[in-house]
């Protein structure tokens, strides 16, 4: 292995610019003559726009343009799209309400863009935006998921005019789809022969993604070539380009260059196509000048797609030996006021197929009703569907162990999947894993058996101690394209592309269609190339995030980069290596098969005859000594379309101390053992687990989006009211370890690690708190007051 190769904790190449303030984020990009856009947003959850008066605003200093929804529509700009079609169980397609980039006629959530004011400075644009007069007729709104399907709830969209025919009459008005997965009949039969049935109701709380860099756009138009350039905080520049050109029609694909410079976190929120990109591109052409928009944090709360927001009833059937027989899950998922780019995918194919977890469950049936409400659109946030599934399953099993009076770890162990590949009853086929190994390891590391003594010690200090377990499975890199694009309704292929260019001096450039936004891609990909050629990573550059440089790509989300991006890079390296060997063989007058790469040299095996990579590369370009059957150049491209998803898994133990007087929970010990397959850079992977677990702690203890049910206003619109995890929310002791079962589905045997913590942590934490307080009646986030209330309930019950 090269010193900087696969498996080494190489320090990150990108850090120098970030630690010195030289990172270039979208808001750091300024173009000559740049204008500034400020959006006038709906102050109401649901209203008809009666009239708009722009007279005063247009007369304000510095105002160059004010764009309206009608103007865009007349200019041929189409609505924002949802790229994943879901079909209801009665065969009807999901009901997509039209989502114009700027509102036309009606607004459906607080924060929806209504107008865009473009001015010489941001201050002037803000001043003019405040001078715009929009007259609204306020309509009743529905913001709570639980209310959306009530017959008397206001309709967010009216579909009567669509002429959609529903098999069983008109469905509830806010229903987007009523989807099922699994075999309902087999599941009913399993329940019919069950010895025990355990049931829970859980809420998966709505959260915001909250990348620390808020979204931003700089759009530029060159009239000479009718060419657009868009700098944007995106996780997937090529996908964005397809959507903006092919669907929204704001710029032709071959004349739209998208640059994602440094991107400051995403957590899902920067996958999607938003109004602001469309409007700034439109405005750049309309005004003939570059246009910048930079979101404030307040706008981010009102516009970045939110996450989660499910309510679920789940039941599990067990036989007399506590073997699982069947699982029934009934979920309602809130998708907000409009369908965001992948909104429909999250509570369906990223949720239902995960419900088997690490367990051999013979029959599973899952029903999901997705609904509209007058809230910000809901889409993927770190984990996206998988945390929701894991939370249902792991709380259900913990509950079952308590009700059945059996050991929680043993109940899980009794039902583990042990043979691979394993076909679940809900689509996915697990490729590899060792769930016993994970559980054994985490129980040992967490000193599970020593818990009673620690609990007794806490009790002496007046604290309630609890311990909780969670065994999760993840599914990364939705694949293969032929399957997901057909039966499952995906609008795009889910492959990845890479190009390896060896320059004439032997330096290497790796171009890849993923988009790092904190995950250390510049280092990780360089390690793979370094490993292949035995060269130092300093002679390797990694290029992502520019559609003019990287030919194609699908971006980074859903922990897909490890499985798909590195595989595309590996495949391209295979091609480069083959060609380099061919050239070396010719130059060394040897057979290709005898050429080996050793310490950066192309060596005839068993001899001291060798060429450096530089010598081979130079020969490839300074094409003097090569025969005509070899093309000049040393530059190869490859696409990788995975044959299957990858299935990381892990086991987490969380130990908490609850202060009964205030309900405050302190996480005293957190132990995570994860199986991500082969690990390219352990330091980076550990960092991903840290981040994911704290994200999970945020959801479990602190974070919750709250709307006022009467006014439809967002009550948690800033960090003053929406609680982000801080450094003092860290577990007192935090231990993690890896176990490796390589994935057979990709060349490097990797699985992906970005979301695992956020998937596995919440149930471990809630299972620990409910263990501590002696009641299962607790929903996330387990704020101090909620825990205190649950304890009051326990005391009242005990007193009665």
């Amino acid at each position, binding site marked *: 292995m090269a010193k900087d190769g696969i498996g080494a904790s190489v320090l990150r190449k990108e850090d120098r610019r970030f630690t010195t303030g030289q990172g270039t984020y979208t*808001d750091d990009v300024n173009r000559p003559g740049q204008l500034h856009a400020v959006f006038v947003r709906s102050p109401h959850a649901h209203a008809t726009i009666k009239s708009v008066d722009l007279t005063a605003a247009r007369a304000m200093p510095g105002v160059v343009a004010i764009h309206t929804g009608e103007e865009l529509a007349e200019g041929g700009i189409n609505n924002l799209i949802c790229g994943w079609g879901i079909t209801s169980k009665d065969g009807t397609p999901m009901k997509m309400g039209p989502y114009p980039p700027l509102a036309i006629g009606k607004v459906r959530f607080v924060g929806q863009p209504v107008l865009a004011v473009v001015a010489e400075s941001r201050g002037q644009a803000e001043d003019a935006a405040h001078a715009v007069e929009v007259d609204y007729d306020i309509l009743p709104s529905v913001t709570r998921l639980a209310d959306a399907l009530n017959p008397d709830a206001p309709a967010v969209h009216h579909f009567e005019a669509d002429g959609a025919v529903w098999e069983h009459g008109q469905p509830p008005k806010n229903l987007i789809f009523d989807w099922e997965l699994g075999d309902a009949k087999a599941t009913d039969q399993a329940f019919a022969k069950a010895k025990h049935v355990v049931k829970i109701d859980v809420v998966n709380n709505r959260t915001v993604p909250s990348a*620390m860099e808020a979204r931003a756009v700089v759009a530029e138009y060159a009239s000479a070539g009718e060419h657009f350039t868009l700098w944007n905080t995106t996780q997937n520049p090529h996908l964005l380009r397809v959507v903006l050109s092919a669907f929204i029609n704001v710029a032709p694909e071959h004349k739209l260059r998208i640059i994602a410079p440094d991107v400051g976190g995403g957590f899902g929120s920067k996958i999607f196509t938003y109004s602001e990109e469309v409007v700034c591109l439109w405005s750049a052409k309309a005004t003939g000048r570059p246009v910048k928009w930079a979101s404030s944090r307040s706008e981010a709360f009102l516009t970045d797609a939110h996450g989660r927001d499910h309510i679920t009833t789940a039941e599990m059937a067990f036989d007399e030996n506590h073997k699982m027989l069947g699982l029934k899950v009934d979920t309602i998922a809130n998708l907000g006021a409009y369908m965001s780019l992948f909104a429909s995918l999250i509570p369906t194919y990223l949720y239902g197929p995960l419900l088997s977890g690490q367990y051999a469950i013979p029959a599973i049936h899952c029903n999901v009703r997705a609904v509209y409400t007058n809230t910000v659109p809901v889409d993927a946030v770190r984990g996206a569907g998988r945390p929701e599934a894991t939370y249902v399953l792991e709380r259900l099993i913990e509950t079952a162990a308590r009700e059945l009076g059996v050991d929680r770890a043993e109940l899980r162990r009794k039902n583990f999947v042990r043979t691979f590949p394993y076909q679940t009853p809900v689509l996915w086929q697990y490729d590899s894993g060792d769930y016993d190994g994970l559980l054994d390891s985490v129980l040992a590391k967490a000193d599970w058996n020593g818990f009673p003594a620690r609990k007794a010690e806490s009790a002496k200090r007046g604290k309630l101690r609890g311990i909780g377990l969670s065994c999760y499975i993840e599914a990364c890199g939705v694949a293969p394209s032929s399957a997901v694009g057909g039966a499952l309704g995906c609008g795009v292929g889910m492959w990845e592309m890479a190009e390896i260019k060896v320059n004439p001096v032997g330096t290497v450039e790796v171009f890849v269609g993923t988009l790092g936004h904190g995950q250390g891609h510049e280092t990780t990909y360089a390690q793979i190339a370094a490993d292949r050629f035995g060269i130092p990573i300093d002679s390797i550059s990694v290029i992502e995030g520019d559609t003019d440089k990287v030919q194609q790509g699908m971006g980074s989300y859903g922990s897909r980069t490890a499985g798909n991006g590195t595989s595309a890079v590996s495949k391209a390296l295979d091609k480069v290596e083959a060609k380099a060997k061919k050239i070396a063989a010719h130059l060394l007058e040897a057979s290709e098969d005898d050429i080996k790469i050793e310490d950066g040299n192309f060596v005839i095996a068993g001899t001291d005859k060798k060429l450096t990579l530089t010598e081979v590369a130079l020969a490839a370009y300074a094409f003097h000594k090569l025969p005509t059957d070899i093309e000049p150049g040393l530059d190869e491209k490859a696409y990788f379309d995975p044959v299957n998803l990858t299935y990381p898994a892990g086991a987490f133990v969380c130990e908490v101390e609850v202060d009964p007087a205030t309900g405050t929970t302190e996480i005293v010990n957190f132990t995570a053992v994860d199986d991500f397959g082969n690990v390219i850079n352990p330091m980076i992977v550990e960092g991903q687990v840290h981040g994911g677990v704290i994200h999970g702690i945020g959801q479990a203890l602190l974070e919750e989006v709250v709307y006022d049910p009467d006014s439809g206003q967002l009550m948690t619109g800033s960090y003053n009211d929406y609680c982000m995890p801080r*450094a003092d929310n860290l577990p007192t002791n935090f231990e993690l370890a890896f176990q490796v079962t390589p994935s057979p589905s990709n060349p490097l045997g990797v699985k992906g690690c970005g979301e695992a913590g956020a998937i596995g942590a919440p149930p471990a934490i809630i299972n620990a708190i409910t263990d501590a307080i002696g009641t299962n009646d607790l929903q996330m986030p387990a704020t101090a007051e909620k825990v205190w209330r649950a304890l009051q309930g326990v005391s009242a019950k005990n007193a009665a």
Partner: protein
Amino acid sequence: MTTVAMTVNGKAVSVDSEDRALLVEVLREKLNLTGTHVGCDTSQCGACVVLVDGVAVKSCTMLAAQADGSTVETIESLAKNGELHPMQVAFNENHGLQCGFCTPGMIMTAVDMVRRRGKTLDDTTIRHELEGNICRCTGYVNIVKAIKAGAARM
């Protein structure tokens, strides 16, 4: 309009700006010091932390005019002649950053922390001192480690 005269990263500067301009806006837009970031608008995230007259402040919660006559140090001032400050080195060596957006504020907060609390910092102190800095990527684990290591080397 107002004229703000400051010493920024050791250099005397004089900038004309609107009275309403925030210090961070003048640093980023007039002085092209884009290492200082804006992550929120309620004075909580700390991405904008710089040192004014030697102490950490949130440059998004201070008018540039208030800094007239002051000395301002930003993230761009830490490395000297191409050599990184020990805190910058510690963030790299301990993987104390991922997307890098909160990093300048974290590092400036850390430098201020060491100036006030000394070079020997325990985890509890660091965690508490980071109350005004939010990171979504790292889970803070390695930030705490980095600050502890960087402090010892300052």
